[in-house]
């Protein structure tokens, strides 16, 4: 990876380089029906030529709004004040004509969702040329040529052909690279990337981040990288600013902030993150409470209500960004030390080096040290198998594009999955989007019908059961969904939502109310809040309600379909802890479907990795992470950015190229071969032949560790 060399070189330049972007006391206020919302408050930062600055924060922290304000892209009724100077020139509040000369030319932007940021009715070539032509009167032909060059720089294969295609014909990763190409079209001085990889899979994320680095190298632009992902920040930028409640609460060189945070929030964020690079800690240390509402920000420090260190002064006086000198004095930073480590906390000095987040963020009521050992009671004999799937196949028909829409083939969403879920066990199903993991989960619950294969619950076959026959079994098999905003009926009260399964199954007619209260308490919510509606709760709380609903019938098996991936980091940890506690307390078995290997490493006992409808590797969690055997697993693990600047920049990478092929037309032989680094680099021609011809079986490597690769080889990555 080139990041390391590059960032060093640039730090060098930047130390005597000039300032390209200067944001000074920026305030953004949105009018709303409930009064005004201060989304951004007193944000100031400087960006030097070629520098990369990361802005991290959770949703609603104001990090995206800040950059929209800089670009002048906010709705007209927004109130913006402060100053934004680009190469010394004020650009805030410029009229359309003047600002459009700046945008794209001097400052460019990349948006979060590549699926919506290109206009569906124009070709890629048209949209890139348009950016070129907006600032250079070079003629259509020359602009088209330039577009081709740009696509090549961001690593899109056969660019000439791509130019004539429409956005919907390209994958998400490709589209994001097109957006990057548009951003670099006029060699801007600053590129603002707003969560450029959040909507993408990890292996694709790595490719897009590479493209972003190429764009920087090519143009020499400074970068503002906005993200919630501490791992991405650690690897990509030199300096980082942490935002909370619309303000920057800490900023400084990335190593400083990661290793010696001076604000409890930054420390807490790091502590609430499940780590791929560390031994499984007993418990995560979540930050209590929820991010503040901008509508009624707390007086004093916005973080105070969630801060374990908060004292009286924190609730009355808002701290300002201060720099700690070597002698321990704290002073306001001077303009020239823009790169210094500053923090907005009254008690920064108490956060000495080496303080562990779990020491500070201890959950109320739960002891942290003497937690019971994680349920590694495997020694007590093999527990009973609850759910068993054999050779599960699910085909979705492809209709012809001809007149009659005949069925011409199948998309094999799931092709031949076998797995077992034992009592009190957590089995994780891991893979990127489209690999069939969610479909598998629904097949196991008989929510959709399998094409072939068998599923049995405690020996009873499930396939072929009618809805009515299935109903009694549903009590034992429940599911928690990904999106806490979509999984609760917005028109029902929380109590009704939780009681619904009991109503359907006509159990506990009398004491349903009591049971609802019990359940609410069990998942850590106020039992008196049953009469409220879902929208009155935050994402994390809603997910707890979803868990309570799933538990209302006393199930034995819970399928958790990406239960934490829609949640903010600081909230995620609390839900993970809750799930672990519930398993302990109620003796549940979990099927944990996720794309996030860090979370999986933390919570699962066993892991099955899926690629294009097949399981490519399965092992206990320790085996899998210590000694991954399949090239895909290795690539997946190595693509996950570590929230540790030094480790992240120095680690060895196994890079996967290209996108996941369409499941309608999977490659012959080994399905991974088209993207496999081993296939591409290490194998001889005859060896490759085998990958093309033969479908690798899922073979035992010993002690339950199985993988499906002809040439598998254990690699240590962490």
């Amino acid at each position, binding site marked *: 990876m080139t990041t390391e060399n590059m960032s060093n070189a640039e730090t060098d330049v930047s130390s005597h380089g000039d300032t390209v972007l200067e944001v000074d006391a920026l305030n953004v206020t*949105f009018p*709303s*029906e*409930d009064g005004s*919302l201060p*989304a951004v408050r007193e944000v100031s930062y400087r960006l030097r030529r070629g520098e990369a600055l990361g802005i991290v924060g*959770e*949703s*609603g922290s*104001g*990090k*995206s*709004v800040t950059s*929209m304000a800089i670009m002048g892209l*906010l*709705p007209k009724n*927004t109130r913006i004040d402060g100053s934004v100077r680009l190469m010394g020139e004020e650009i805030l509040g410029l009229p359309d004509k003047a600002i459009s000369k700046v945008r794209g030319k001097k400052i460019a932007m990349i948006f*979060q969702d590549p699926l919506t940021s290109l206009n569906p009715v124009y070709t890629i070539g048209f949209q890139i040329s348009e950016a070129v032509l907006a600032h250079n009167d070079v003629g259509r032909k020359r602009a088209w040529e330039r577009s081709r060059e740009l696509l090549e720089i961001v690593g899109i294969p056969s660019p000439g052909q791509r130019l004539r295609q429409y956005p919907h014909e390209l994958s998400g990763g490709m589209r994001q690279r097109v957006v990057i190409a548009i951003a670099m079209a006029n060699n801007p001085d600053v590129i603002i990337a707003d*969560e450029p990889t*959040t*909507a993408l899979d990890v292996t694709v994320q790595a490719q897009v981040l590479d493209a972003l680095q190429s764009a920087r190298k090519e143009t020499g632009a400074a970068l503002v990288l*906005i993200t*919630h992902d501490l791992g991405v920040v650690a690897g990509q930028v030199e300096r980082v600013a942490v935002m909370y409640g619309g303000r920057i609460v800490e900023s400084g060189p990335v190593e400083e902030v990661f290793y010696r945070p001076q604000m409890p929030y930054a420390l807490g964020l790091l502590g609430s993150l499940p780590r791929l690079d560390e031994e499984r800690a007993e418990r995560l240390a979540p930050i209590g409470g929820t991010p503040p*509402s*901008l*509508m009624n920000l707390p007086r004093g420090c916005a973080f105070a209500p969630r801060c374990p260190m908060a004292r009286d002064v924190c609730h009355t006086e808002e701290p300002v960004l201060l720099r700690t000198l070597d002698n321990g004095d704290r002073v306001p930073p001077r303009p020239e030390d823009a790169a210094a480590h500053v923090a907005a906390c009254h008690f920064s000095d108490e956060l000495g080096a080496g303080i562990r987040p779990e020491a500070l963020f201890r959950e109320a009521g739960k002891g942290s040290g003497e937690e019971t050992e994680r349920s590694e009671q495997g020694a007590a004999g093999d527990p009973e198998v609850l759910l068993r799937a054999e050779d599960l196949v699910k085909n979705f028909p492809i209709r012809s594009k001809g007149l009659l829409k005949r069925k011409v083939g199948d998309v094999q969403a799931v092709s031949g999955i076998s797995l077992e879920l034992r009592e009190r066990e957590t089995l994780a199903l891991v893979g990127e989007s489209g690999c069939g993991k969610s479909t598998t989960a629904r097949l196991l*619950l008989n*929510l959709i019908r399998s094409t072939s294969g068998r599923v049995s619950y405690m020996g009873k076959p499930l396939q072929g059961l009618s*809805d009515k026959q*299935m*109903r009694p079994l*549903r009590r034992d*098999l*429940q*599911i928690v*969904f*990904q999106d806490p*905003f*979509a*999984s*609760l*009926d*917005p*028109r029902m009260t929380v109590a009704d939502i939780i009681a*619904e*399964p009991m109503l*359907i*199954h006509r159990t506990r007619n009398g004491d349903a109310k009591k049971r609802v209260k019990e359940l609410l308490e069990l998942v850590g919510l106020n039992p008196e809040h049953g009469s*409220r*509606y879902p*929208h*009155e709760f*935050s994402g994390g709380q809603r997910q707890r309600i979803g868990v309570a*609903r799933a538990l209302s*019938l006393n199930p034995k098996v819970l399928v958790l379909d990406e239960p934490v*991936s*829609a949640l*903010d*980091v600081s909230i*995620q940890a609390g839900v993970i802890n809750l799930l672990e506690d519930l398993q302990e307390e109620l003796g549940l078995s979990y099927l944990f479907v996720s794309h996030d290997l860090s979370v999986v490493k933390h919570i699962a006992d066993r892991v099955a990795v899926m690629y294009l409808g097949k399981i490519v590797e399965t092992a206990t969690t320790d085996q899998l992470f210590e000694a991954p055997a399949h090239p895909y697993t290795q690539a997946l693990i190595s693509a996950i950015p570590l929230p540790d600047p030094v480790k992240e920049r120095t680690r060895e990478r196994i890079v996967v190229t290209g996108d996941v092929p369409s499941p309608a037309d999977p490659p012959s032989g080994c399905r991974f071969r088209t993207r496999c680094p081993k296939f591409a680099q290490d194998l001889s021609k005859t060896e490759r032949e085998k990958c093309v011809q033969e479908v690798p079986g899922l073979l035992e490597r010993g002690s339950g560790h199985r993988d499906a690769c002809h040439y598998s080889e254990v690699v240590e990555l962490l």
Partner: protein
Amino acid sequence: MSNGTPTTAPGRTAQRSAADRTQLQTIVRRFVRHRPAMISLFVLIVIAAFAFIGPFFWMWDHRVSSEILSNQPPDSTHPLGTSSAGHDVLGQLMRGAQQTLKVALTVSLCATAFGSLWGATAGYYGGRTDAMMMRIVDVFLIVPPLVAVAALAGNTKGGTTWSTIAIIIALFSWAQIARVVRGVVLSLREQEFIEAAKASGASAPWIILRHLLPNAAGPIIVAATLLVAIAILMEAGLSFLQFGIQLPDISLGQLIGEARTAVSTRPWTFYPPGVLLVLICLTINFIGDGLRDALDPKQTMVRR
């Protein structure tokens, strides 16, 4: 963890800050803030009172009376003048508005009830059921409603009371509602809370009645409101063509039809029923608009 664009960020927090309010209160508050809708509601209530309560206090009804001089311009005894046949125009107006409103409300109620169920069922089951049910809807949508209704009502001579007219209009109005509801249900059924209900073992009628229809209530109410206006216009057109409510009973459309040759000679018979009709439809449209703003979260700043 998806971080909001600026439109979602403040929106979600606004929602959170509204924590202590119930949904109904929020909706009412939003509606009350929609000034044109509130004014319209007030005007509509006044008109309804005029139509339903008015006749109890006004000496003349819609029938010909020997005491009434014909063709009189407005004066103190007949504030809106009299017709050529010797009706009191004000009395006619009250009765006409009353019949028109009765027809429109019945149409909206019947068509909405049937159309919602039809659309929700089609949308929930999807696939072939949906295709077949929606073909039928298409058939009702491609036949110009006024024409079809006129053909039906005009052909069934003699027995056209307000309720017959209402049922015939409803027969050709439910399809629009079904189409709207199906569209909403198609997106609703992909939501995870529907899957959650299925995972708890809920049956199809349970899901349709308990989850889909309540969640489609916003668009349904808006469509039903607008349908009232559409039904009024349809009834008026029908009566104008003399295929609607038959004499001696009257409606607003029929009053306009009767007076259409008298625009310049007896304007007092032509303009009042028309203005009243326009006023009713206009207020209903504004109320529908206000309801949409209040009920449909997509129209506000909140995305979800």
